[in-house]
């Protein structure tokens, strides 16, 4: 059992004692953990007091009202962010403007809870923030111990980059030595293969860039209010040339018509580009790609279905590993780096606190479904 230190920052004593009452006997546990989290509660009536407590104690979670007598909530958040304290902040506020939401998200606030809230809402929010904190600390710990992982990644990467170089070099040598004669036409297949390997390498490099952006960009966010339907449409347009070659139709179906989200547009674009390009790449001629967007119960659901080659049950759990590609007769001629889905999963889980799942029937098609919680503010 672990105890997390929670600091409640609100100038109204009634709210502080209300939260205390709700959380005093509350604990959070997860099916995948042996551990159970309980909360030790502290209070501060102003931003100044809050900072003093955070400086002295290791605070794990801060429940922060924005409207405070002296310095306001955002300033407290900025302080925590600047000092890089290892704690998660949840904003509790009665009126959130878009401006405030953007500022708070860019400063690393985990979530918004509107005031007034029911005990159930507060508990659900605490569960989310606890899980997030736990996962973040685990990832950090793994990264610290992660030299090994890093090395492994690099050695696999060098394999992935050297393979095409070896293949292309081999073909060039064959051509240089005129091994199949002097007629250039006899080298046609080798030339085409070389070009294909080069384009595969280019994809790998692009994917690598996405990955480094993800890793280095952790703090410097560029969060905006975006309409994910726009981004899906953009992605569809990008993939259309590839789809036309196989006579595949891409459909977008959104309900409501616009779905707004606070996010970095680039990240959402990576999600759609990966899902739609896979749905086209691993589809059959004359197939379809259906991109369904829904907003329900403060959740955004994105699903991309195709009518393609599908995959077997054993392949599904391996899908999200870095450099993982399914190898069989059907995928043989399709090139890719095997990085796309691993990047996608990272973004969905680490950036959007969401989840991704796959359902597939061999030879019938595949559906990838992503669910992300919507930050709880009026946009």
């Amino acid at each position, binding site marked *: 059992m672990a105890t997390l230190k929670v600091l409640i920052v609100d100038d109204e004593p009634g709210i502080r004692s209300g939260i205390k009452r709700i959380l005093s006997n509350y604990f959070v546990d997860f099916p995948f953990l042996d551990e159970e989290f309980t909360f030790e509660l502290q209070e501060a009536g102003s931003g100044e007091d809050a900072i003093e407590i955070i400086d002295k104690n290791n605070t794990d979670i801060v429940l922060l009202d924005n409207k405070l007598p002296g310095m306001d909530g955002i300033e407290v958040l900025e302080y925590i962010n600047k000092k890089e304290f290892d704690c998660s902040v949840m904003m509790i506020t009665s009126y959130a403007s878009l401006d405030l939401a953007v500022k708070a998200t860019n400063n690393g606030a985990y979530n918004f809870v509107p005031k007034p809230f029911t005990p159930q809402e507060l508990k659900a929010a605490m569960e989310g923030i606890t899980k997030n904190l736990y996962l973040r600390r685990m990832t950090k710990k793994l990264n610290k111990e992660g030299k090994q992982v890093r090395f492994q990644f*690099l*050695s696999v990467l*060098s*394999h992935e980059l*050297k*393979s095409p170089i*070896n*293949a292309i*070099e*081999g*073909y060039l*040598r*064959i051509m240089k*030595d005129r*091994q*199949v004669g002097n007629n250039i036409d006899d080298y046609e297949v*080798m030339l085409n*293969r070389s070009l294909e*390997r080069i384009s595969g390498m280019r994809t790998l490099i692009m994917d690598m860039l996405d990955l480094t952006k993800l890793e280095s960009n952790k703090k410097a966010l560029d969060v905006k209010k975006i309409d994910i339907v726009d981004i899906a449409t953009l992605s569809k347009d990008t993939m259309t040339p590839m789809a036309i070659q196989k006579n595949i139709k891409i459909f977008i179906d959104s309900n409501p018509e616009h779905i707004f989200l606070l996010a970095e547009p680039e990240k959402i674009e990576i999600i759609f580009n990966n899902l739609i390009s896979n749905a086209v790449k691993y589809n059959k001629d004359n197939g379809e790609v259906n991109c369904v967007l829904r907003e329900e119960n403060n959740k955004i659901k994105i699903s991309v279905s195709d009518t393609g080659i599908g995959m077997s049950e054993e392949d599904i759990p391996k899908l999200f590993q870095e450099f993982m590609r399914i*190898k069989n007769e059907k995928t*043989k001629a399709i090139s890719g780096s095997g990085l796309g889905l691993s990047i996608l999963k990272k973004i969905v889980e680490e950036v959007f606190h969401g989840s991704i799942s796959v359902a597939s029937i061999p030879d019938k098609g595949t559906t990838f479904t992503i669910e992300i919680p919507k930050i709880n503010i009026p946009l």
Partner: protein
Amino acid sequence: MNTLKDKTVLIADDDMDIITQLSLQLTKIGMKVITAETQKDAESIIEKTKPDLAIFDLMMDNRDSGFILSYKLKKKYPEVPVIIITGVTADTGMMFGLESEEQKKWIKADLYLEKGLRPEQLQMEIKKLLKI
């Protein structure tokens, strides 16, 4: 004179281009080529067929597929020489040779080569292994 003629070589590599290139080089000197693109395929070929020589890529489905195949082949046909080829060793520090008897005992391959070998060199190495 072409003494390599009609010798059968099993090539296992998950890179179809490397298979194409090796096949081209070896069929040109008269060898019969059987190919496999996965460790599994190679294993089932070994079950049924005895090649005169095997060339295995090190990293296929597994990071050490080449060693596994080599082990399995040698168990069934101890006299068949095995060459392991790879393209990664030098820069990942995963360096090894097969000089000492000690190493040969557990690695179970006869020769270890870098990818990108010139055809004449490969031919020479094969002749040496087949004692031709």
